[in-house]
């Protein structure tokens, strides 16, 4: 059921990265959409060339955006995915990440404001928007506000980004603005820092904490993004797989070994990289969101957190040591010995 006609010209930022490339290609395949323009500061890697053959690629640094591109293109929908969830030491680290997330979004939103033809704005956000506190409810709905300014860089960027969208909504009430608060991605192809963490043989955790985690399957995230572009879904939505798995559960299912570390030590390790404050907070507090609004408004239920994570495990068997099947066969052996004796 399409609530409104699809936009003719769609601009996707962050097209050189996985999510941007995938969604740009999906939208370009929609016959109702005439043009899809992909923006990014770097050229997409070779592997996306075939995928992006129907997407017009433009090199554009959002942090130095002139503002006239969107107007010239007569953009009707903008999908803002140029949001980085973790610093990349080879690309300027945290400073560059903040520059891209905050300043980049600011410029883009300013440009959107001036684009008369714009009908829809879709912005990638994160469940990190809820921050991390001991006084938080167990499950966050879209109305829950962060109790304190989070200490994690990504979470702070997300709050800034959502702040700009709020301002935009006030100034351009005629444009449908959709903010999607994604849970961490999982799936066979997803390559997030969090998933790379789970792909290690030994996974450091916080001693005395077994946080509740949620994931969203990348394919489901893409479907929600696609629907936000071609249908009308104003508002802010949590996008996560229903249900939870705890960190210990995730590690056991993945066949990894957990290494509990005192919280201050793990925090000290953030200075050396490899783990961010965002992640330490996630590993202390966990994060679970309510997806009732998404299911009701989009008429779409993402596959469960457990299924999404299972899909990730299937494609990452190589680092696994204590896999469920090895545990099974070991216990079967004990069982057999016991039976034999009886």
């Amino acid at each position, binding site marked *: 059921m399409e609530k409104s006609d699809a936009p003719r010209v769609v601009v996707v930022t962050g097209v050189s990265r996985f999510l941007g490339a995938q969604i740009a290609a999906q939208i370009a395949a929609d016959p109702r959409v005439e043009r899809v323009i992909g923006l990014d500061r770097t050229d997409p890697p070779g592997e996306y060339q075939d995928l992006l053959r129907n997407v017009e690629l433009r090199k554009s640094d959002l942090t130095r955006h002139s503002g006239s591109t969107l107007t010239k293109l007569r953009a009707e929908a903008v999908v803002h995915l140029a949001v980085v969830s973790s610093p990349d030491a080879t690309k300027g680290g945290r400073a560059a990440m903040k520059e891209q997330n905050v300043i980049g979004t600011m410029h883009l939103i300013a440009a959107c404001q001036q684009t008369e033809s714009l009908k829809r704005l879709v912005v990638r956000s994160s469940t990190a928007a809820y921050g991390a506190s001991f006084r938080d409810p167990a499950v966050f709905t879209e109305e829950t506000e962060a109790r304190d300014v989070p200490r994690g860089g990504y979470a702070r960027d997300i709050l800034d980004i959502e702040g700009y969208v709020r301002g935009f909504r006030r100034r351009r009430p005629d444009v449908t603005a959709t903010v999607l608060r994604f849970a961490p991605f999982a799936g066979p192809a997803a390559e997030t820092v969090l998933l790379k963490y789970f792909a290690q043989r030994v996974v450091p955790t916080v001693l005395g904490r077994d946080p509740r985690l949620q994931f969203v399957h990348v394919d489901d995230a893409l479907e929600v993004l696609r629907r936000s572009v071609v249908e009308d879904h104003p508002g802010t939505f949590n996008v996560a797989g229903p249900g939870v798995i705890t960190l210990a559960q995730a590690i056991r299912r993945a066949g990894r070994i957990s290494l509990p570390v005192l919280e201050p030590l793990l925090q000290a390790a953030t200075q050396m990289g490899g783990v961010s404050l965002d992640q330490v907070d996630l590993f202390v507090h966990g994060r679970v969101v309510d997806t009732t609004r998404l299911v009701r408004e989009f008429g779409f239920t993402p596959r469960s957190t457990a299924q999404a994570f299972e899909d990730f495990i299937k494609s990452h068997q190589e680092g696994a040591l204590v896999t469920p099947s090895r545990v099974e066969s070991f*216990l079967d052996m004990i069982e057999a010995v016991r039976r034999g004796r009886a």
Partner: protein
Amino acid sequence: MDVPELRDEFDASIANGLAFLRRRLTGDYEVDDFGFDADLTEHVFHPVLRQLYRHWFRTTVDGSKNIPAEGSALIVANHSGTVALDALMLCLAVHDETEPHRFLRLLAADFVFRLPMVSELARKSGATLACNPDVDRLLHDGHLVGVFPEGYKGVGKHYSQKYKLQRFGRAGFVSVALRNRKPIIPAAIVGAEEIYPLLGNIKPLARLIGAPYFPVTPTFPWLGPLGLVPLPSKWLIRFGDPIDTTPWADQADDPAVVFNLADQVRETIQGMLGEMLKERPDPFED
């Protein structure tokens, strides 16, 4: 000498243990949105607590017919005993006295979630933070929710105040029950007051570790870890008649109605405590 039944029983428990181990090591168990791990609670927490419940505290329960077999309700009880063992025993009473067994979902102070280990155990055993969104969600999902409106004032009170219900604060539990149109079941616990008789509170130490109080009892901290052994008082737990809140459901924000109902609950629990203490004149009887 061979006793076949005994060996069968032993065999069955080994098999159950292995099946449990298999689930735990492979991560093949369910945890709900609040972090409640029913598998771990039933197979590890409850068996350990049941030893205390049955053999140490010799707990007797009555009025369990007042706990609904299904649907949600708010169970409101008195709080005492320096550490919240009474809450855990109440959970076990609810579980063991209902058929099919039901889990009591406790509401805990934020202090509990600040501490490593404690926070993990709390969530896994079904507790969550005492806040409106969580209670509403639990009641909406059909759970039994356990509340101790006295909070720290009850659990951390001086021994001389024993079995005197403290203030109920804002009586948020009444508003919650009214808003959700759920019954309130008053519950009285006798026995917890005597396990760690609180004689003093070392405030600077409490501040140092961020705790609401640092208890001094006849045995703690003098005897070190030995002082952590609770005194073997005799426990009674009673569930009173459910209070239907639907007649006032639209008045959840009226302080007069809320305090009135809170007083009714408070007096009911205080009354039950009085009756039960008469039945148990000696705290350390068999």
